[in-house]
């Protein structure tokens, strides 16, 4: 097993262990076993179909990252926290992770699959930004700072400016 694949497996297992920690044993063990089964099936299936280990690892990581908001929401749904503050913090983290994943998803670019693997169901995707600017689209996605600035400015403009005047009839 290659080091990238081993690292991806460790990350998925580690994250699953983390977000299920402290839950009711039946629920916790069921989720961990289910993820473990999925990892095994996915690994075996893609290996049989001849995908390179690095591609399998990258796909696992993407499935992990894109699912983290759902993991946190699921955890919050089943939370048994004594403190309301902790529970609220979990919800806030979940919402923040949705924003992060949305931003991440907007920066992903699919790689062209190799010939003969076009209907395989999995492909490698890579992070284009911030490591490399997208060159084949006219406007690259904004950085988080730019995004926040633009959003704030737009909100302020909508709130402060009066509505635009109705269109005037064309004069002859």
């Amino acid at each position: 097993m290659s080091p990238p694949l081993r690292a991806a497996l460790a990350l998925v297992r580690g994250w699953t262990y983390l977000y299920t920690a402290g839950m009711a044993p039946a629920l916790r063990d069921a989720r961990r076993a289910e993820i473990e089964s999925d990892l095994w099936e996915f690994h075996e299936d893609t290996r049989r179909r001849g995908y390179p280990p690095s591609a399998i690892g990258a796909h696992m990581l993407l499935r992990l990252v894109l699912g983290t908001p759902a993991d946190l929401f699921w955890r919050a749904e089943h939370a048994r926290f004594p403190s309301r503050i902790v529970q609220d913090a979990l919800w806030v983290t979940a919402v923040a992770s949705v924003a992060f994943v949305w931003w991440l998803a907007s920066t992903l670019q699919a790689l062209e699959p190799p010939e003969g693997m076009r209907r395989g169901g999995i492909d490698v995707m890579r992070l284009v930004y911030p490591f490399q600017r997208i060159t084949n689209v006219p406007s690259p996605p904004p950085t988080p700072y730019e995004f926040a600035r633009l959003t704030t400015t737009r909100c302020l403009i909508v709130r402060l400016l009066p509505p635009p005047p109705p269109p005037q009839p064309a004069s002859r």
Partner: protein
Amino acid sequence: MRRKQGTLVPLELAICEAAAGLRSRGIDEFHGYEIAKTIGDAADSKLLTAYGTLYRALARLEKMQLLTSRWEDPAIPARENRPGRRLYTLTALGDDALEDAGRTLEEPARAHRRLAPA
């Protein structure tokens, strides 16, 4: 935004459709990865449904009683040297929900066809 009571979100609908599709091919029980792969193939998607999204949706469908699940006999994975699978089945209620969703999707299309000029 809260969803309407009893309605299915697109992923839940996709899971029920994929489960019905598997059953029509003689596969009554399916595990998580199998359903993710079926959905991915049907949508011609490059990426399989994320772990968290998939298993949260499956849990929700089970809570809504549209799916039932059981863990397979531990002797089987022990013999095949792999982790045990949680096997899901589409219930009669799941079939009904799928039919209802199909009707809901079909109605606007039918109305559009009726209204569209010939």
